[in-house]
């Protein structure tokens, strides 16, 4: 059987590169990795993968790359994720929407034009869960999108709706709503948590500390993408559908922090519980202070909501329809990921 042509947008990114690896492992795909950046120095690139440079905002660049690659299935992972304070503000909303929604529209149009049979879109749990004031316990895909309050959640919801509206009998689309990703080379999750150690923020517990949250190991999410590609090629039962993809192991935010810190040999020597109400006022104060001084702080009201609410989902639908099963469990994934960072940072120190 001839290998099936798959194009991965954002193919040198954190998730994209892992999807490329998972596709290589599956041994039945001919892979093109499209990205605005070439593979970063020090990360692995594969001789069997064709790397193309293109910007999803430039229709012509995209069209050229797609007409050369002629993919049967497209995996679209490109997105910008506003982090830190930007996550909770509406500043820069246009730029986020331009890439996350406009870029997705370009990729959809060009994919169809170039005769692709389907597209798998990397969505996010935030399409539902980013209504920050609300608790979400074990929610499933019947919950409505479009209520998110963050720019990111809104942009992903709009793009996801667009992707699913493109689903027709000759162009099948589906969306995988990933939880917070972590893994080796993870640009955000682990470095941010690691940063708390140096700033002496680790003893403080915000809120009750009983609220559960979901996380996802990058390789498990990459596996889910390969399963979705196979589904669109075979039964097509995933077409027009969205799926929550997480590690299926909700834990409290506090415990995931401790687990990361422990990997770096740090266990808080004492713990202080800050009630949610107090934390909110502290955050307000900090926000005012940082606004005046222009410095950066970890604490903000949005962030308090982010860590003190229940935010976990059910992955029963992905298990049932895609046959998804998180292969690497949270403790093992955490160990592997932190090991990578320990090595990288010790090498940096030597240099």
């Amino acid at each position: 059987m001839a290998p099936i042509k798959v194009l991965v947008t954002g193919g040198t990114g954190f998730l994209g590169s892992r999807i490329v690896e998972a596709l290589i492992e599956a041994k039945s795909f001919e892979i093109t990795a499209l990205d605005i950046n070439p593979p970063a120095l020090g990360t692995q690139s594969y001789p069997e993968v064709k790397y193309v440079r293109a910007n999803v905002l430039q229709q012509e660049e995209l069209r050229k790359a797609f007409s050369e690659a002629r993919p049967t299935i497209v995996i679209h992972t490109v997105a910008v994720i506003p982090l830190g304070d930007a996550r909770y503000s509406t500043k820069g909303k246009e730029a986020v929407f331009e890439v996350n929604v406009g870029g997705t529209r370009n990729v959809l149009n060009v994919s169809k034009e170039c005769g692709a049979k389907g597209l798998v879109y990397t969505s996010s749990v935030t399409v539902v869960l980013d209504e920050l004031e609300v608790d979400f316990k074990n929610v499933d895909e019947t919950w409505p999108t479009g209520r998110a309050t963050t720019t990111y959640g809104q942009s992903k919801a709009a793009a996801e709706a667009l992707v699913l509206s493109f689903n027709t009998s000759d162009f099948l689309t589906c969306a995988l709503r990933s939880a917070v990703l972590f893994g080796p080379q993870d640009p955000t999750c682990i470095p941010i948590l690691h940063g708390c150690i140096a700033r002496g923020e680790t003893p403080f517990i915000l809120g009750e500390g009983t609220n559960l949250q979901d996380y996802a190991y990058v390789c498990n999410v990459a596996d889910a993408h390969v399963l979705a590609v196979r589904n669109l090629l075979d039964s097509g039962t995933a077409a027009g559908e969205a799926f929550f993809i997480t590690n299926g192991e909700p834990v409290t935010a506090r415990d995931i922090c401790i687990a990361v810190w422990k990997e770096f040999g740090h266990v808080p020597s004492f713990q202080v519980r800050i009630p949610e109400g107090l934390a909110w006022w502290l955050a307000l104060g900090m926000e005012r202070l940082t606004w005046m001084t222009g410095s950066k702080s970890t604490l903000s009201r949005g962030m308090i909501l982010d860590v003190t609410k229940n935010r976990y989902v059910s992955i029963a639908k992905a298990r049932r329809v895609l046959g998804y099963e998180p292969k690497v469990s949270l403790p093992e994934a955490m160990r592997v990921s932190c090991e990578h960072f320990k090595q990288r940072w010790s090498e940096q120190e030597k240099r």
Partner: protein
Amino acid sequence: MPSPMSLIYYAFHPTELRSIIQWKVWHNPVHERDESKETDALKRCFYFLDMTSRSFSAVIKELHPELLVPVTLFYLVLRGLDTVEDDMTIPLETKEPILRNFQDVLEQDGWTFTENGPDEKDRQLLAEFNVVVEEFKKIKPAYKTIIKDITKKMGNGMADYVRNAEHDTNGVNTIKDYELYCHYVAGLVGEGLTRLFVEGGLATTELLKRPVLMESMGQFLQQVNIIRDIKEDHVDKRRFWPKEVWSKHVDKFEDLFQPENKEKALSASSEMILLALNRADDCLYYLAGIREQSVFNFCAIPQSMAIATLDVCFQNHELFKRNVKITKGEACQLMIESSQNLQMVCDVFKRYTRKIHQKNNPHDPNFLKISIACGKIEQFIETIFPSQKPPVDAKHKSPASLAEEARLKKEAEEAKWDNIYMALAVVSTITVITGLMLFIAWLAGARFDVAFVQFKEQMGQLLGIGQASNATAPSGHSEL
């Protein structure tokens, strides 16, 4: 007679005392045995049930009449097997054939066994086992088949275990061995009981299609017992904690009990607790398959006790010094909560899961795994009893939800009138009663006229003071 210590304890824990009183006073058995219809042999069987089981006899005796006798006999048969297996004074060559053929004993009229050592506490049961055989022959053939089948499997499992001399010197080796042991002594009981429940029409047949659930029911109880009894078993020179677990923390099993190894012993115990905790969601799932209240209580009460016991054992170094257990008051509270419905049992599990989670020690090697196990239980409870519903968007309301809204409006209207009628009823009741009381008082000779005059005088005095002070003001005013 309660000890002075317990009196002091309950003086400081009134809610626990309240639970004890509540359970003793208000608990009505779902079904009661009818002693007038029982034969002497059956009465003797119930006598042995009380003798040999502390925790199970109460719940067994409340079982549905259909299963009361079969389950009692099943229990006594297994207890008989256990009594043969446990007795170290019986030589292997006598023991093994009895264990392997115990299912045939059940239909041999007048079978008894008197070779138990004099110290064996349950030896009388085997010495009079003929009463069990006599009653066993009378139960429905379907129940007989199930009990014999389980007896055979368990007897062979026990025989394999006693033959394996290694267990006597080293105890259980791997986690797999440990779970196999628990399977023989408890998982099989779960299977037997489930088949009896389904045969009797008191549980859904689905339970037989997911055998892992009934296995977990037995495993959870047995593992919790093994964790709790570590000290007692050690004194009796028995080891059930698998070497695979404790050898990660200490070199020799005895080292677990050394005070200087406190942290290591706690790490080993939390790993054992983690193994058990991973079964908890299966147990709740199983309970959802039960269709009859007495069977539900029979299954749920021990499970609730088990999760509460896990909580007292967790991160508790006393475990290695003495037999830790839940208090009587807590036990009664758990019995009250576990003899109602699944939702209340889920609340119990959630409460103890959170207590365990709160004690989880960041230094523990299994910190994250325990956290995940706790999260799994909560998520499972959320799947069977969702606490939230997807919001209905105001913008696109379907006709169904419009109809729903009209219904809610109507209900609200009805509720309003209910409230008005209720208020009227209350006011009129108070009026009638007050009137009646005054009338009776009058009949009894109350002098309302005198009271009224006195009342007027006193009020006049009170107001008079007020009038005196008021009186100056107008006069002052007139001077102006």
